[in-house]
């Protein structure tokens, strides 16, 4: 009983790590622009596909370059995937969001644009690459550590570690660095910031680079853990990660991180003790209850509306 409980905790930590990594991206963009970047889940999906093509190329499967050993491929794939996914995220910002921001239109229109961009990414992928699922190559051989009857794979530990490191890194960037201060300043007052000589557009681009980069990393890790890719993989997990970010208190890095793990725990525990079809039902009911008790989320601070 205890063993299976601990086993489930490890599973939940891993599952929560994916939610956290995606939720962090949502939260960064929301924190700076107050924009729900609904396309973020699909950027995660694009990240997984980019990781697939990067790894296949590096492994020499396409015959462009001689194959490399798995560990080297992984070491190269992480930065390459993050960079290429960041390019996708920034392109989205430049093409779709920035012109709208320049015009100063209602925030809702930007949200709708984001939603539609997500749909475009999904279906363009489906149209270009076809509906056949792709299986991700194995990069590193799985080794299982077992102690006291609990089995933990090296991949699982890696995923959890990456999520924690990503959280610490982002928190460091936002709290301690100069550009993080600029990000918080834009969130606080978007109109005063350019007057203070802060290049607002550059800071926003940097935010998108960070958010999309970590979505790409999440995509790579997800593809390594569950090695089947399909174009709709990002949609559901993206929506759920977003809900997790809101429950944590959107706009707070800590909240997004905690919310992701909370959702992971709830889902894994529901699956462990109930039929697995109840997962969404119970998870969302719990989240809805949390939100109705504390509408600003666990770590969120209510913005006071001045009259």
């Amino acid at each position: 009983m205890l063993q299976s409980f601990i086993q489930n905790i490890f599973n939940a930590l891993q599952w929560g790590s994916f939610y956290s990594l995606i939720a962090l991206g949502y939260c960064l963009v929301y924190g700076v622009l107050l924009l729900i970047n609904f396309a973020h889940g699909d950027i995660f999906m694009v990240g997984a596909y980019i990781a697939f093509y990067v790894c296949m190329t590096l492994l020499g499967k396409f015959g462009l370059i001689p194959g490399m050993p798995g560990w080297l491929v992984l070491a190269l794939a992480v930065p390459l995937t993050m960079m290429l996914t960041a390019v996708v995220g920034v392109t989205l910002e430049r093409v779709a969001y920035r012109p709208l921001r320049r015009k100063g239109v209602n925030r809702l229109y930007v949200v709708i644009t984001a939603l539609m961009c997500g749909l475009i990414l999904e279906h363009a992928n489906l149209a270009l690459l076809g509906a056949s699922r792709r299986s991700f190559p194995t990069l590193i051989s799985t080794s299982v550590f077992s102690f006291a009857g609990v089995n933990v794979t090296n991949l699982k530990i890696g995923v959890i570690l990456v999520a924690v490191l990503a959280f610490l890194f982002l928190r460091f960037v936002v709290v301690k660095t100069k550009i993080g201060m600029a990000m918080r300043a834009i969130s606080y007052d978007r109109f005063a910031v350019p007057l203070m000589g802060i290049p607002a557009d550059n800071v926003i681009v940097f935010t998108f680079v960070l958010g999309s980069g970590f979505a790409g990393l999440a995509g790579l890790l997800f593809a390594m853990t569950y090695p089947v890719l399909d174009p709709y993989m990002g949609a559901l997990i993206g929506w759920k990660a977003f809900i997790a970010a809101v429950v944590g208190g959107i706009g707070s890095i800590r909240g997004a991180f905690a919310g992701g793990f909370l959702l992971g725990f709830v889902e894994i525990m529901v699956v462990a003790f109930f039929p697995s079809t109840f997962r969404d039902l119970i998870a969302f009911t719990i989240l809805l209850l949390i939100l109705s008790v504390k509408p600003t989320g666990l770590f969120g601070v209510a913005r006071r509306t001045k009259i």
Partner: protein
Amino acid sequence: MKHYTIPALLVLLLAALVAVSMTGAMNVYWQSVLMFMGINIILSSSLNIINGNMGEFSCGHAGFMAVGAYVSSVLSVLLFADGSVFGDALLPPQLAVFLFPVVLGLGGIAAALVGLLVAVPSFRTRGDYLAIITIAAAYIVKSTIENINAIGGARGFMGMSKVTAAMNTTAELPWMIIWVFVGTIFSIWLIRRFIFSTLGNGVNAVCQDEIAAEIMSVNTNRVKLTAFMISCGLAGVAGGLFAHVLGYVNPGSFTILKSTEVMVMVYLGGMGSLSGSVLSAVLITLLMEALRPLQIIKWVVIPLILVLLMQFRPEGIMGNRELADIFPGLKKFYRMKG
């Protein structure tokens, strides 16, 4: 006399529709396109109350549609269809025609009650948080349906075609076309009455400034509650019609993609414009059919249209104007702000 022009025209239109579909002048394909057009009109004009007039962002309209679809289908199959699911029909099939609106209405009421799930949290939160609550509510509805095995779970629920067949025992008419038509006109009438009422002005006031509205003695909680319940209830009616037109429902039809489709219609038509939503529902339905040969690319083209729309004409086709504001001549035929 002019007050009767529109009702008379509508009756004529309905008679013409029935005539052409009975004589076979209009084939089954076009009949179904017209029926889906009607359902889409109900959906988009009802979502327009929340997303347009009230300025909220609800992305869970498909969930309420699912509630209406399932409640009314289960009731109608239970009452009028001899089937394997619930055994023999409880009522004679001759009653099907007369009780069908009641069944639809009950589906709508059930959806409106589920709408409370969203309306009550909306008293305290707005904007992004409310968007999440609507998404979560839609997921909860879908997931609940998937877990009830008595109504088919994820496999779906069927038997509604027997109900439509039962209606034909009273008179051989294309009943579903009639019901969709009546439902569409009823919804538009109801929404018009609501929006131009005192309560409807309250909805617009909440959109512009909730705090100011509250100070001006608008009971914002009551306004939100009514708006959400009417909108969700009409979505339920649309769902009921959808289920009976298809003769089959499954939870997979009520995903976030369906909600997105309805949102596209609302924003294409213009936020807060009833005639805009009707117009864009018609346009989008035709566009969907026209783009059908493109298959999956259709779902690239439609979002792209909306993205371009947001860039170059973010207020949609009509803005927040009504048809009568653009063609003042129309005002003669129906009272404004009644």
